[in-house]
């Protein structure tokens, strides 16, 4: 179902063409990072720490080097000395000392799976055997893996040199608290004093992983000019170039990154893990080297999203008006600072218009893998706290969950708790669409067969979306087709949506646009495919590059007709003289005359747009629970979301459905399970339980279109906000079914049983 305000407005936008890269992907021809083949290619392996926290005393690589078939063995000694230097990567910043130490441990290992050495050999098994021959002496230290434990005085310290900050002041002495920041607005005490009802609760969530199916990979060559070429599956070839150059201490221009097809990322394929290691192995061996990460290391050593400890406190008047809210959000950053607590703080209250707010956020290092972005980073956790407290208040007041949200909804002009004023947003439109949905209007029978209990939950979420830099070039072929070159790696159909916007401007069929994702030497700087920015910003560049083509084609037509360029009008793919109706050429006809009117036409644009539009989603879940076992099944699910303009509605729905299902896994079963030594023990797809198709109902989608005025076609990002509400939605549904409030995720069967027993 679509609430399509843009229906009929466009020719190409809003249709559902087959994606250009689809044929290669259904036939097995598409080349992903692991599929790269090069002459003389060596295979690598990485040796990783079995300990969560230890000093590295010594590494003896002699036996590994002596194994026949081994071409190089490297440790941190082979890497340039790391330099502390903070660089923004678009979705999160990187400190190169930390990035360098994360790809290869220097003096300490900070989590199980932390790389300590690497090997290149004639084949994979030889490399693995050689890695097993490396002797590492560790001085094992007590790990600290829990955010609240890490903040306690006397906790094991990860970084002796960490300069912790507390509300802008440097913390004296050693600490794991990288930062504590606060946003305050209004008079929080007066706001709570004014309230008739105040609910304050505490929450914890477990660290979870993005769970992309394709493991990390990197292939590198280091050539005679000391130039590095990297083939990899990445969300951003330019940010990868910057990270590799930063770790290798060379200019960005010395590194070329060739992005291959990418098997999922969700934020986790922004950081570089293997690329610098493959480059150093290539330098040492003089051969191309490929590294493939094993699944267990993907879990143990690459970017999860933080586990958290949070409080949420909300005050309301009897009539349901929210008067004040306070939240304290403490995130596990992992081994190095840089959790997404800032993003969580930007979003946590943003569905509501609250006059008095305080938001505290803590970034805390713990002995776990360094966290990375994961789809609306940090915001699912925060929404779990906020939206279940809101649900409790709604229950207490006896109000309707959607009416309560509409009453308190943020709208154009509402000040976000962290400062910015909301521009035109679709929060209320989304809530109204949820209220009108078939799901919401279908009563739920609370008692099922065999003692099964059913419940329905609702929750909302917000994500701000980002813009950042993108470049696109479009060259016109003589047959009227165009070749579109972009720098955004395509994780989920973006070639199609970017092409559709160019086709819309040029007035040609989308099949006549041939999109191509270029390497870092084939297109201007382009930021990551992340932050829900690709269709927005690269689409913006596509629009502008197509406009550039149109303006050049108008000049060509003017030249042909010997009139002023101003005399040539363009509409619906046709170029026409204003004064002489006989003078009219279609895009295709005009394209055939380029050779005789001055040669090729190439349009280009590079953008850094500021008008990314925030997105809202409201979701409804029905669950069935077996109270004897605690087993929860999601039996119906509806997601309602303002997408601005749905360029390719099928892939918009796909983003919504995929995010919801990740959220369902997060809510019910996914977690990092650590043993007493701080080592993750469930690092496989068997025991890190992501939903299978047999665990799920169809995911119903309701697309709401409130166009973003900051984009020529009204695009808002769509990929992230859908994962914000699910954990809270499921928590509220479980409460509706069983009358218990779970404030710890995952809300697995064991926890449900325990809560039921405590309830009695």
């Amino acid at each position, binding site marked *: 179902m679509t609430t399509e305000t843009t229906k009929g407005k466009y020719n190409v936008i809003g249709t559902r063409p087959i994606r250009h890269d689809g044929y290669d992907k259904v036939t097995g021809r598409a080349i992903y990072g692991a599929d790269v083949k090069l002459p003389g290619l060596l295979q690598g392996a990485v040796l990783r720490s079995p300990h969560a926290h230890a000093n590295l005393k010594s590494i003896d690589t002699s036996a590994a080097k002596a194994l026949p078939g081994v071409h190089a063995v490297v440790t941190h000694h082979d890497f340039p000395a790391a330099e502390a230097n903070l660089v923004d990567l678009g979705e999160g910043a990187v400190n190169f000392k930390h990035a360098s130490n994360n790809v290869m441990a220097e003096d300490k290992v900070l989590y199980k799976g932390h790389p300590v050495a690497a090997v290149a050999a004639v084949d994979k098994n030889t490399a693995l055997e050689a890695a097993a021959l490396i002797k590492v002496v560790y001085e094992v230290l007590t790990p600290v893996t829990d955010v609240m434990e890490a903040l306690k005085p006397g906790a094991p310290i990860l970084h002796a040199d960490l300069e912790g900050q507390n509300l802008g002041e440097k913390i004296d002495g050693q600490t794991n608290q990288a930062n504590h920041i606060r946003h305050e607005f209004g008079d929080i005490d007066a706001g709570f004093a004014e309230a008739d009802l105040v609910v304050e609760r505490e929450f914890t969530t477990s660290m979870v992983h993005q769970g992309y199916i394709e493991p990390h990979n990197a292939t590198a060559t280091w050539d005679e000019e000391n130039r590095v070429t990297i083939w990899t599956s990445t969300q951003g070839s330019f940010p990868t170039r910057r990270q590799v150059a930063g770790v290798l201490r060379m200019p960005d221009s010395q590194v070329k990154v060739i992005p291959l097809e990418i098997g999922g990322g969700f934020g986790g394929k922004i950081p570089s893990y293997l690329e610098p290691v493959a480059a150093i192995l290539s330098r040492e061996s003089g051969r191309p080297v490929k590294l493939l990460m094993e699944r267990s290391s993907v879990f143990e050593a690459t970017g999860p999203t933080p586990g958290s400890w949070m409080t949420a406190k909300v005050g309301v008047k009897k009539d349901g008006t929210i008067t004040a809210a306070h939240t304290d959000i403490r995130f596990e950053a992992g081994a190095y600072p840089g959790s997404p607590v800032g993003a969580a703080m930007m979003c946590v209250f943003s569905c509501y218009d609250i006059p008095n707010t305080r938001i505290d956020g803590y970034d805390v290092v713990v002995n776990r893998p360094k966290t990375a972005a994961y789809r609306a980073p940090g915001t699912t956790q925060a929404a779990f706290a906020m939206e279940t407290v809101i649900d409790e208040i709604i229950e207490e007041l006896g109000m309707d969950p959607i009416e309560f949200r509409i009453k308190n909804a943020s709208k154009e002009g509402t000040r976000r708790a962290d400062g910015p004023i909301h521009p035109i947003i679709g929060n209320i439109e989304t809530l109204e669409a949820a209220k009108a949905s078939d799901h919401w209007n279908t009563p739920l029978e609370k008692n099922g067969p065999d003692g099964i209990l059913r419940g329905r939950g609702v929750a909302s979420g917000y994500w701000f979306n980002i813009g950042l830099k993108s470049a696109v070039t479009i060259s016109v072929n003589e047959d009227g087709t165009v070749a579109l070159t972009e720098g955004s790696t395509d994780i989920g159909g973006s070639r199609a949506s970017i092409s559709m916007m160019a086709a819309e401007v040029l007035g040609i069929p989308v099949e006549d646009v041939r999109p191509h994702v270029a390497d870092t030497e084939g297109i201007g700087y382009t930021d990551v495919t992340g932050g829900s920015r690709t269709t927005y910003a690269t689409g913006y560049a596509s629009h502008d590059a197509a406009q550039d083509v149109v303006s050049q084609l108008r000049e060509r037509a003017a030249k042909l007709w010997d009139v002023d360029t101003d005399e040539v009008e363009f509409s619906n793919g046709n170029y026409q003289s204003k004064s002489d109706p006989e003078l009219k050429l279609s895009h295709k006809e005009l394209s055939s005359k380029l050779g005789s009117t001055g040669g090729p036409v190439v349009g280009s644009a590079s953008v850094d747009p500021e008008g990314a539009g925030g997105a809202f989603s409201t979701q409804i879940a029905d669950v069935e629970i077996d109270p004897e*076992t605690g087993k929860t099944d999601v039996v119906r699910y509806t997601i309602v979301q303002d997408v601005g303009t749905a360029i390719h509605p099928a892939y918009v729905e796909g983003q919504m459905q995929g995010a919801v299902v990740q959220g369902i896994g997060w809510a019910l079963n996914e977690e990092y399970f650590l043993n007493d030594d701080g080592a993750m023990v469930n690092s496989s797809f068997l025991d890190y339980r992501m939903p299978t198709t047999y*665990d799920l109902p169809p995911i119903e989608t309701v697309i709401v279109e409130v166009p973003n005025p900051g984009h020529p076609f009204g695009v808002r990002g769509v990929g992230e906000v859908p994962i914000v509400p699910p954990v809270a939605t499921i928590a509220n549904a479980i409460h509706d079914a069983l009358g218990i409030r779970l404030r710890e995720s995952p809300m697995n069967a064991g926890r449900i049983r325990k809560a039921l027993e405590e309830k009695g």
Partner: protein
Amino acid sequence: MHPFEYVRAKSVDEAVAALAKHGERARPFAGGTDALVMARAGRWELDALVDIKHIPETNILELGSSEFRHGAAVPCYKVYESPEISAAFPGLVDSASIIGGIQIQSRAGLGGNLCNASPSGDGICALIVHNTTCVIAGPNGKREVASEDFCTGPGRSVIGNGEMLVELKIPTPKKGFGAAYQRFTPRNEMDIAVAGVASSVQLDGNTIVSARVALAAVGPTPILSTAGDSLAGKEATADNISAAAQIASSEATPISDMRGTAEQRTHLVGVLARRTLERAVERARENN
């Protein structure tokens, strides 16, 4: 991974000879869904994997009037895709159809599931409540072991160096026999039991002549509970079944780990014992 040889044995003797040659550094290999994972993870260091899938005896699948012969290399799907076998052994189908997904069931079988000797093996308890006898071949000939005595610890069994499982001999159910296996898993498929229970009953009218209850994932090996014995001679009533389920629950000796807490598992055993006994009785009544 230590490089190993692949030996395709054509007979039990050939397989036993190859296994005996390498001692503990060789393993029989059927579905491979455990063996290759163990070798790759470095938990088994092997010089040889001995493929037993090309041996006539290990592929036998013969439903006789008194005995069902199930070769050690028979994959799960052959059990549930055979109308005769699935009609006679719904309790085995319960297990064979939930070991991994369809891909795994194309290769993995009840024999390998037993030999892997995981406490959570979904097939083992079903074999135990069907009074299965395991035929083992070795350098000194063949021997037979009751399925409840087969596993000796997590990943350990009575299979010694040079030995292999050849077949499972399962009594063909008489009228009034019913069995069922159920497990609790957070996911609906592709998961490993937090706890599992298999139950079987032999009814005479509404009297339980004999019963067996076996527990998965709640001890170092699958456990043959005395809950079954407690039902012998009793009526198949809800109260009697509940009482037996309590016994099963009390005999569980689980640990807490990433898959569940000891408390949760003990509780689940009680629930699953009751449910599988009820289901077994239902099936026994249908089988009259």
